[in-house]
């Protein structure tokens, strides 16, 4: 890492350079403020600037450079201020600089040891920032890989499964009569296995897509629309189960409709799936709580034992065999991903045998 130096008097610059070079740190002297901007853009560990070298105009262009830094970067600056009693102007100036970014002000005359110590600490801070950058880059690469995987899952993996599904169907249709009961049973296993694989892939895809929801705040929409869409998708299951669904007043929140629909569909779908013999009642409400909206989906189903209240949100986590209750174990994992991408939280309260309440928050 190199340290950039800007001082109006050439001799001062050289003195500073010598002081820093004594620490085996590279230095580069900027001939003028404009050069400093260019050199900062090329990368630096820190910059030392004599206060008088920066006019108001330069401070402005420095401010715009500072605000254009990537999120990981907070370039450390060491500013050598003028000697003597602080004037109102110099105080104002100091405050102005400190508000712009990572500025350490040192009053002249300075001892070489003070400069060295300030530079060391600035470079230490800078190397931390570089670590953050490389971690962020690794994370971005991992995300890109994940998206690539989602894409493969949607194309390359689905294709052969689709063929198996269609052709076992044709096999059953045209040659089913040639098979004995055992053969028919085997064919049935192939078909249900294929169907299960398709569902798993579709769910895995939703999950990876939920992970790559962009970090932005959408315009508010009424939660009622996505809720109605979810209930519409579940219409068949609701009719079959005879479930009574009641809905309280729904607010407008900042979320993409498709994501809220997915959450409601998974939660209400689960309530229907894990019902008891008694008539099922699902009640949905929302209320404002400080800085967020709290949504509750309450049912009188079989409930969930306390020890599983965290695990049910895991990928492919299931508490029952697929014979007892169909499903891939991805629904709640998808809900959790979506809610967390919107900086909310999801959890559940339950009394086994009496019912469960799933609660989630979305920032208002």
């Amino acid at each position, binding site marked *: 890492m190199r340290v950039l130096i800007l001082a109006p008097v050439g001799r001062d610059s050289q003195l500073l350079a010598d002081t820093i070079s004594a620490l085996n740190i590279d230095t580069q002297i900027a001939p003028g403020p404009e050069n400093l901007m260019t050199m900062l853009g090329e990368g630096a560990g820190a910059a030392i600037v004599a206060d008088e070298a920066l006019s108001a105009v330069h401070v402005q262009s420095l401010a715009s450079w500072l605000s254009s830094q990537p999120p990981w970067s907070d370039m450390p600056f060491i500013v050598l201020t003028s000697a003597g009693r602080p004037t109102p102007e110099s105080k104002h100036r100091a405050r102005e600089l400190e508000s712009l970014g990572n500025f350490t002000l040192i009053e002249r005359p300075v001892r070489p040891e003070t400069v060295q110590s300030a530079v060391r600490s600035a470079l230490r801070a800078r190397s931390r920032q570089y670590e953050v950058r490389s971690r962020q880059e690794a994370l971005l690469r991992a995300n890109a890989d994940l998206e690539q995987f989602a894409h493969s899952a*949607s*194309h390359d993996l689905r294709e052969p*499964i*689709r063929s198996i599904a*269609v052709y076992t169907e044709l096999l059953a249709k045209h040659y089913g009569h040639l098979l004995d009961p055992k053969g028919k049973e085997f064919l049935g296993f192939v078909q249900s296995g294929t169907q299960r694989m*398709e569902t798993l892939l579709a769910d895995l*895809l939703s999950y990876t897509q939920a992970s790559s929801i962009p970090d932005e705040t959408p315009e508010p929409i009424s939660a009622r629309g996505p809720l109605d869409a979810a209930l519409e998708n579940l219409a068949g299951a609701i009719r079959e189960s005879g479930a009574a669904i009641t809905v309280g007043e729904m607010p407008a929140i900042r979320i993409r409709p498709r994501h809220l629909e997915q959450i409601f569909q998974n939660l209400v779908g689960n309530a229907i799936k894990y019902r008891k013999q008694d008539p099922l009642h699902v009640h949905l409400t929302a209320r404002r709580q400080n800085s967020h909206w709290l949504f509750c989906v309450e049912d009188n189903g079989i409930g969930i034992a306390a020890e599983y209240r965290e695990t049910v949100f895991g990928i492919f986590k299931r508490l029952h065999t697929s014979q007892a209750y169909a499903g891939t174990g991805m629904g709640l994992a998808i809900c959790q991903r979506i809610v967390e991408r919107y900086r909310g939280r999801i959890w559940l309260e339950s009394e086994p045998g009496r019912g469960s309440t799933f609660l989630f928050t979305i920032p208002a």
Partner: protein
Amino acid sequence: MLVEDSETDVFLVNEAIAAHHLDVDLQVVTDGEQAIRVIARIDADENVPCPQLFLLDLNIPRTSGFEVLARLRGSQRCALVPVIVMTSSNAESDRAESGALGATAYFPKPSGYEAFLKIGEVIRGLLA
């Protein structure tokens, strides 16, 4: 013309054509480069007829279906021919990109036989 590398899907498209009694002479190429060569030949020689309809799989060897679609829309003689993009993916991004590149219809390949035969209806609609 059908651009499709999967034999099983070529078979299903033929089934769909038969099931809907369509009078279609289906020409099949199995990768993107072949498709692009065909388009270039049509543009170079006025005597080569341009297909009345393209059925285009997105996931094909050598070049992507998107590239073939772009080439098709940039072609002199085939630019206005209807194109059905058919793919295993139902991803929003694929649908959007197909639309942006000028696909006429988008058909996500279903996992059921009867559902797959519905492509016959789409073909009929675009040939009429």
